[in-house]
């Protein structure tokens, strides 16, 4: 098993990175650090996809002009295209959640998730935000 894990070491590293990000999301109290954990998970997915499409000794999929491209020369381009989708969605989700966190901070005056929950239960809120 260890031998196969060293052969698939990129995938194994991606899985461990994913776990680190997951644990970060579970254990961090600070909301921004929670979303850094989400970004670590995203990065693990990119690493996994890119390593899944890699073929030993093959080139990046840029063909040469005036020469027929052969599938034996290039790596698999499909996972590379999927990574792009992942990056775009990750950027959008991160921006959206950071905006939400900024609104939460304006309302409750703290970034701590437990503190926000406690204030939410007891019904106290900073009324700094005029339209909330």
């Amino acid at each position, binding site marked *: 098993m260890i031998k196969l894990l060293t052969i698939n070491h990129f995938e*194994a590293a991606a899985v461990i990175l994913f776990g680190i990000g997951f644990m970060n999301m579970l254990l961090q109290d600070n909301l921004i650090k929670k979303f850094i954990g989400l970004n670590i998970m995203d990065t693990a997915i990119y690493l996994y996809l890119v390593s899944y499409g890699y073929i*030993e000794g093959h080139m990046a999929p840029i063909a040469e002009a005036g020469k027929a491209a052969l599938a034996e020369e290039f790596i698999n381009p499909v996972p590379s295209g999927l990574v792009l989708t992942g990056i775009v969605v990750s950027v959008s989700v991160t921006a959206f959640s950071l905006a939400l966190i900024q609104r939460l901070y304006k309302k409750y005056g703290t970034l701590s998730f437990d503190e926000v929950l406690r204030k939410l239960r007891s019904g106290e809120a900073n009324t700094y935000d005029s339209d909330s």
Partner: protein
Amino acid sequence: MDYKSDPNKIGKWERFFKWVNGEDSIDSVWEKEMRSKITGKRKKRRKTIEDTIERINSYSKKIYIILSVFITVVYIGILLYTVYELPEHGNPLNPANNEVSQRYIEHGVEETGALNIVSAMILDYRAFDTFGETVVLFTAVICVAILLRRTDEDKTDLEQDSFKSDRGDILKFAARLVFPIVVLYGIYVIINGHISPGGGFAGGTIIGAGLILYSAAFGDEKIKSILNYKSITVTTVSCLLIYFFSKGYSFFTGGNHIESVIPKGTPGNILSGGLILPLNICVGIVVACTMYGFYSYFTKGDI
């Protein structure tokens, strides 16, 4: 207070209907009812309940940490076992390297006219997927605008903000040197997206970084003459519409075996690859506007 003489007492079904209708007075009524129940007859029991809650609260943090570590370790274990079962890394005979990627590589240049096979794939074969991605970015910037855009009353405290104060000379000088190079490089990456690594997303991000640098160095007023809320919205939406209609046309003609008027060009030239170059430019403009929009909403609350 006796529970039975409580005037706030309501029937079970009535409470259920009120709860279904979403009336928010229910919680307080329910709380009062529960409190009167507890204070009236079950003082002893309440004390034991509170003790238990406190004890649970003190232990729950530890239990939560132990459980999260346990769940994560189990999770990593399952995934590592899956990795162990995966085919060998880098082997050309892996099931992922099937006829789909072979077809893209061997017919991509001749069918799309682009040398960059990833570009050919995402902007020709699967162009509507990329359109969806661009729309996701646009939706994200709309959401950020909804959440963070300041109302007119808030703008008075913006006057004291640091965004209008004078910048250092070093930052201004460096920005004056670097900004044209950054934007030029971004444009290069965008218009060479079909013949070399790069494309609309990468080049758009580079141009967006240049715009952010300019805005940070020279302040709000200078960039506002070109990039304001209206102009950014108009350019983004028109780029998305150009993308949609041009690619819709090309898919319509291609799907119905009608001759398309868009020439493929010689692979390797700048003006080649059919629709890939204009689509890359559209995507690049949308991404640059989105990146600059994120920055200015998070710092200033307005574009």
